[in-house]
C-alpha cells in the first residue's frame, strides 16, 4: 500500500442534507487521526459542508436514493478532498454569485465563493457517468507531531 492510500479515508453519504452531519463527524475523526491543525479543520469543515450541500441540492433530480462518496487524502502538508457522485452533470464551480460584494446575500451563490476562498485548487471532471470534484488545501503541520 503506498503512502497516499494509507492516508486516505472515505465515506459514502446519501444525497440528503441531513447527511452533512455525518460528513462533519467523519472530518472530525480524520483531523484527530492526522493531527490537522484547528484552524485548518475549521476551514475544511466549512468547505465540506458547502460542497456537500451544493452537490446534494443540484446534482440530482430528487433527494434521497443516490449516494455521494467523499475521499480525504493527506500528504506532505496538503489535503485533497474528492467528491464523487453519479448525478446529472453538475459543475459546482459554475454556481457562483456574480459579484459577492454587491449581490443580495439573502440569495444563493455564496457557497462556491467560500469554497474557492478556503482551498488552493478546485477541479471538476465528468468521468463517464460520474461527477468528480476535487479540492486541495495546503496547511502547515503542527510542531508537536
Amino acid at each position: 500500500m503506498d503512502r497516499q492510500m494509507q492516508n486516505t479515508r472515505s465515506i459514502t453519504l446519501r444525497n440528503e442534507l441531513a447527511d452533512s452531519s455525518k460528513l462533519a463527524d467523519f472530518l472530525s475523526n480524520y483531523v484527530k487521526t492526522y493531527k490537522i491543525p484547528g484552524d485548518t479543520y475549521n476551514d475544511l469543515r466549512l468547505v465540506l459542508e458547502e460542497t456537500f450541500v451544493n452537490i446534494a441540492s443540484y446534482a440530482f433530480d430528487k433527494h434521497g436514493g443516490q449516494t455521494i462518496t467523499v475521499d480525504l487524502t493527506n500528504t506532505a502538508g496538503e489535503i485533497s478532498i474528492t467528491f464523487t457522485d453519479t448525478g446529472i452533470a453538475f459543475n459546482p464551480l459554475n454556481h457562483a454569485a456574480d459579484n459577492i460584494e454587491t449581490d443580495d446575500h439573502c440569495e444563493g451563490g455564496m457557497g462556491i465563493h467560500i469554497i474557492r476562498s478556503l482551498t488552493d485548487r478546485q477541479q471538476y471532471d465528468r468521468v463517464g457517468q460520474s461527477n468528480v470534484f476535487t479540492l486541495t488545501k495546503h496547511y502547515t503541520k503542527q510542531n508537536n507531531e
Partner: protein
Amino acid sequence: MSLDIVITPEANNGKRISIAGSLDSNTAPELQQSIDNEINDSVNATVIDFKGLDFLSSAGLRVIFKAKKMMDGNGGKFLMVNLQPQIKKVFEIIKALDGMNVFKDQAEMDEYLTAMQDKVKEGE
C-alpha cells in the same frame, strides 16, 4: 451538530437572539422559524449574540441577512455581537461586514447603544 436558540427581551422593545452550536443547512430553518415568530414591525432592534456559535455556513448566513433586511426595511436596528474568529472569518470571506453593526463584546455594544440613546435625547 445542533443549534440552541434563546430569545430574550432587550431595552427599548428590542430582541436578543442568542445562538449556540452549529448554524448550518440542517439547523438554519430552526433559526428562520424563531425569527419569523419573534421579529416583526414592532421590534425596534434585533441583536444576534453569536457567543456560543462555533460553526456558520452559507445557509445560516442567508437567514442572518434576511433578518437584517427585514430590520432595515422596518427602520429598526440590526446588531451582531460576540463573533468568534472562525465566525467573523466567514463574514469576511463574503465581504459582508461593511455596513454591519458588529461588536466584539457586550461592553462595546453597550457603549454604542448608550451613545445612540444620548443622540436621541439631544434631538428631543
